[in-house]
């Protein structure tokens, strides 16, 4: 449950933002990271950005999520 996902802020008005997480656009709040700017990558947990992260860190997590996705597809094939 305590897993946060990195996403790039593509719209920002006050603390309301739209973020792009691997192609998914999600409505988020940046209340907890007042320093976040348009274009920044933030870690999102339950609809709230909790940290600003750098590009390299975000890439690692996106890769990990892609691996997980592939793994679960393989998993289904094996058990199904």
């Amino acid at each position, binding site marked *: *449950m*305590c897993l946060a996902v990195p996403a790039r802020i593509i719209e920002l008005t006050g603390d309301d933002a739209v973020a792009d997480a691997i192609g998914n656009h999600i409505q988020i709040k940046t209340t907890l990271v007042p320093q976040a700017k348009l274009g920044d990558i933030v870690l999102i947990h339950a*609809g709230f950005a*909790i940290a600003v992260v750098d590009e390299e860190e975000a890439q690692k997590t996106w890769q990990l999520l892609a691996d997980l996705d592939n793994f679960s597809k393989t998993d289904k094939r094996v058990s199904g």
Partner: protein
Amino acid sequence: MLDRINIAYSQIDKAHKLLGRRINVMEVCGTHTVSVFRAGLREAFPKGLKLLSGPGCPVCVTDQGYIDVVLSLAERDDCLIATYGDMIRVPGRKGSLERKADRGNIKIILSAQDALNLAKQNPGKKVLFVAVGFETTAPATAIVVNEAMQQGIKNLFIFSNHKLVVPAMQALLLDKNNKIDAFLCPGHVSVIIGSDAYKPVVEQFKKPCVVAGFEPMQIIEALAEICRQIVDGKPQACSLYSAVVTGAGNKTAQKIIEETFDAVDGYWRGLGQINKSTLKLKEKFSSLDAEKHFKVEFIPQEDITGCRCGQVLCGLIDPPECGLFAKSCTPDTPVGPCMVSSEGACAAWFKYARRKRQK
């Protein structure tokens, strides 16, 4: 990468030889449990190291009495229940939210903000927000509580059962039967509380507390760091997840938690009552407090007969040692909470560790 693994493993071997026994590291976070299994690390670790799954899944540590209260409120026609999806299948004494979902008043939300929106969209209903989760999730609840207060929302009620990680770690170490030599500390809880938050654990119990992210290599190196600290006799609170977790954590989030909640004694499944471990709304927000509005009596319940989730959560047994595991208790028919959540230790063991044995 192989070099890094070899260096890490030799560090673990060194600590094993020095202690003359196996080193037990508790991974506090459910996401670590799953990452470790998924990467096949358990099988690949040196023999001198054992990982114990800790109480790091908020669903798993939520007391059955709390779920029973939510279930009884779900029976009211004037209530809408707003809950994170993780909670929906957890069995209480009277079924689960999933089984009540056909009444149409159970709403799965992805953000605390959705609970507030639900209240605005349904002025004729009382919206109960099932507020569970650790420090990662608590700030979101706090923001929504403050917004609802400012906007004069009268039909949103927060049933807060947010938990704090550090008091649980301390409670585990106070148990004289514990086998824990060190903690692999959660990644995203630590984004909020910072790695310095574990200093009291290190100072009081002399156990290393190392924060790691979720990449397998970083988990291996965090375990090696723990072993290095054991060999040197210098336990520390530190973070290998430095790109995201700082010593101080997210001060804005900590401030809003402090301003919104009081830490009170709270009941954890398997661990019992823990001092100042549960967040309840401060008096000034009592108009939003579900416990006050619905006058609920929150009685801790005995755990389910035969279910050993409590011992699993304390790292005392591995899931297959429970008589129900993979027999009457499976992810499709969960008896205990550790089988319900995909991050629960039993569900992770069921999914990843059974396959090996079946081969």
